[in-house]
């Protein structure tokens, strides 16, 4: 037998500290300083260039084009028989999907006490709120007469008619509104102690801004208890709300008796799809934050990408399962129109989209994310994440306008040709990134108190001859 080197306990601990944020504590004051520095750092010229370009895109592609759409009418968009549902609804589904990652990371991982979640819960929660803003915009664009959106709100109109509360579109309004409000409140509650920290360390207009946001928080036993209780209620309650949102979105399709849409598995299939794109987006955002913001390499480490990578792999497998389940039942059913539609997906003019979807959603994640070293690399995981998002957008494109193109009246078949939707969709993406950039300068991205709480709970413990990590239950 080869000689075994004596176990170097010290270097083992050192290595563990280097890998895991929870084992590498810094004084709270130092961590506060690092988070404040990241936020207050003077923007570089590159930041301003990206900021200005994105602002221009938002102003022109989103708002100006929206003005054109309103003044000239829906004819500017490519929607016409039989494709009345186009990119606006593709984007609605896509952005709601992106928003699911925030709740998944923050609420589900909080409920299960997954410790790796601590430094990036806020970055993920922001994704929920900002994603839902884009989803809301996309629905309003689709409505055409945007200014009459309030007709959806449940109150009687001049003719004493209430909205039809048994219509899936009204469910959409209720579900998206509930989710947007609750995710914004869920973002704000754990932010209070961090803005109080920022208030204590700021001057000038920032001091006033954080003072208002901190609401007078001091960190009394009572304040922590109320906050803790509320966060627990939110973490448990927002999970079924999140599930309901995308299930209701799926019913917009599944409740119709169209070939390819009428499916009992659409609810869970849409949820898994949402998590797939959301986790991919979370990986990209985390990599950008780590790569561009000061001091973030201390808070966001390989272990976090590793954990997200594992989740992405599991979700990719689940998505493949649901996709195949939906496909095989429809294919086996033998309905003539469904068969034609499925064939149109694979071998029609947009067959390349179908194959790309399978490659980037299944083949590439499976080929890359099994390897711990690769998935711990921010660049590799963000490329996989971008791929998944492209793939998931293609999936929604195939479900919405491409599936609508094939119906039981062949004389109406027509391939959807998008118009003004394309720049407006790009505008929503630019607004999403722009909101993140602005948030990075206004609110602490790292929940410092949650990180410190986690670090206090972790310690090394001797277990026989081995040093292991022990986590205490502090709640």
């Amino acid at each position, binding site marked *: 037998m080869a000689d075994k080197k004596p176990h170097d306990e010290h270097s083992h601990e050192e290595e563990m500290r280097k890998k895991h944020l929870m084992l590498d504590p810094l004084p709270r004051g130092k961590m506060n300083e690092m988070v404040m520095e990241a936020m207050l750092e003077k923007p570089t010229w590159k930041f301003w260039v990206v900021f200005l370009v994105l602002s221009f895109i938002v102003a022109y592609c989103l708002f100006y084009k929206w003005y054109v759409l309103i003044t000239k009418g829906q004819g500017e968009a490519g929607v016409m028989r039989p494709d009345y549902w186009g990119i606006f609804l593709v984007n609605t589904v896509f952005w709601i999907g992106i928003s699911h990652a925030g709740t998944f990371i923050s609420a589900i991982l909080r409920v299960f006490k997954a410790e790796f979640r601590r430094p990036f819960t806020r970055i993920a929660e922001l994704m929920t709120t900002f994603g839902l803003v884009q989803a809301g915009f996309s629905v309003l664009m689709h409505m055409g007469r945007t200014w009459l959106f309030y007709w959806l709100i449940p109150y009687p109109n001049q003719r004493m008619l209430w909205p039809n509360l048994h219509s899936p579109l009204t469910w959409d309004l209720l579900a998206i509104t509930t989710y947007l409000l609750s995710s914004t409140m869920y973002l704000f509650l754990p932010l209070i102690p961090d803005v109080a920290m920022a208030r204590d360390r700021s001057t000038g207009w920032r001091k006033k801004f954080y003072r208002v946001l901190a*609401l007078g928080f*001091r960190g009394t036993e009572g304040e922590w208890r109320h906050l803790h209780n509320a966060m627990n209620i939110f973490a448990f309650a927002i999970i079924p709300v999140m599930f309901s949102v995308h299930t209701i979105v799926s019913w917009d399709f599944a409740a119709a008796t169209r070939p390819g849409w009428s499916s009992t598995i659409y609810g869970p299939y849409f949820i898994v799809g949402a998590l797939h794109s959301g986790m991919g987006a979370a990986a990209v955002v985390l990599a950008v934050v780590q790569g561009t913001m000061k001091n973030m390499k201390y808070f966001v480490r390989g272990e976090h990408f590793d954990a997200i990578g594992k989740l992405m792999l599991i979700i990719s497998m689940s998505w493949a399962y649901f996709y195949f389940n939906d496909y095989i039942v429809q294919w086996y059913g033998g309905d003539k129109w469904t068969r034609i539609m499925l064939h149109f997906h694979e071998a029609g003019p947009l067959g390349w989209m179908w194959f790309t979807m399978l490659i980037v959603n299944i083949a590439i994640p499976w080929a890359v994310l099994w390897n711990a070293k690769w998935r711990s690399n921010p660049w590799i995981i963000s490329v996989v994440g971008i791929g998944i998002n492209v793939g998931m957008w293609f999936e929604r494109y195939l479900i919405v306008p491409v599936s609508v193109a094939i119906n039981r009246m062949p004389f109406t078949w027509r391939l959807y040709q998008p118009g003004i939707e394309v720049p407006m969709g790009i505008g929503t993406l630019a607004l999403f990134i722009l909101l993140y950039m602005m948030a990075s300068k206004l609110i602490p991205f790292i929940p410092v108190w949650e990180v410190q709480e986690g670090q206090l709970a972790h310690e090394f413990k001797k277990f026989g001859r081995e040093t292991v990590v022990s986590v205490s239950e502090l709640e």
Partner: protein
Amino acid sequence: MTETKQKEVDLLALFSDVAPAADAVEQLRLVGVRDDEINVLSGVPVTGAMLGREPHPTNVPKIAMGGAILGFLTGAFLTFVTPYWYPYPIRVSTQAYVPAPPTVIVLFEITMLGMLLSTFVGVFMDSFFPNYRPMKYVPEISDGKIAVFVECESGDQNKIIDLLKKLGAESVKPAEAQHL
């Protein structure tokens, strides 16, 4: 504590850890300071159990439950009542006028909305947020220090300062209300 009525002072003791702060709370109790005269402030959640005190009462779960009930009733009103207020109700063959499955969806969404909104409001109500009046506070708390505020009579001030210093307080001084 002293019998004669004396001026009350607030003392602020800063500790670097929870353990000495918990010891201080215990010793203060032994010298006759009531629990409601002690307040502990921290930059991370410090529970009553950690400090050897009763957990602070909270109404947030009750308020959340109230909101859920209110939300459910609103949902029930929208789904069960409003259809009957239509001036010209359209009844289709044998279809139920108020079908149950879609009603479940509306009831669920509005119940959850009521519960979550009231949970949020509950934090504001229980914590007296927003509160922008001058308050006793030091910024070191958000830097990880544990602050123990003690209300005592001026005659006991020196005794309590000595006690807190002996128990490991980094500093003990009269607390002053200030704009945060």
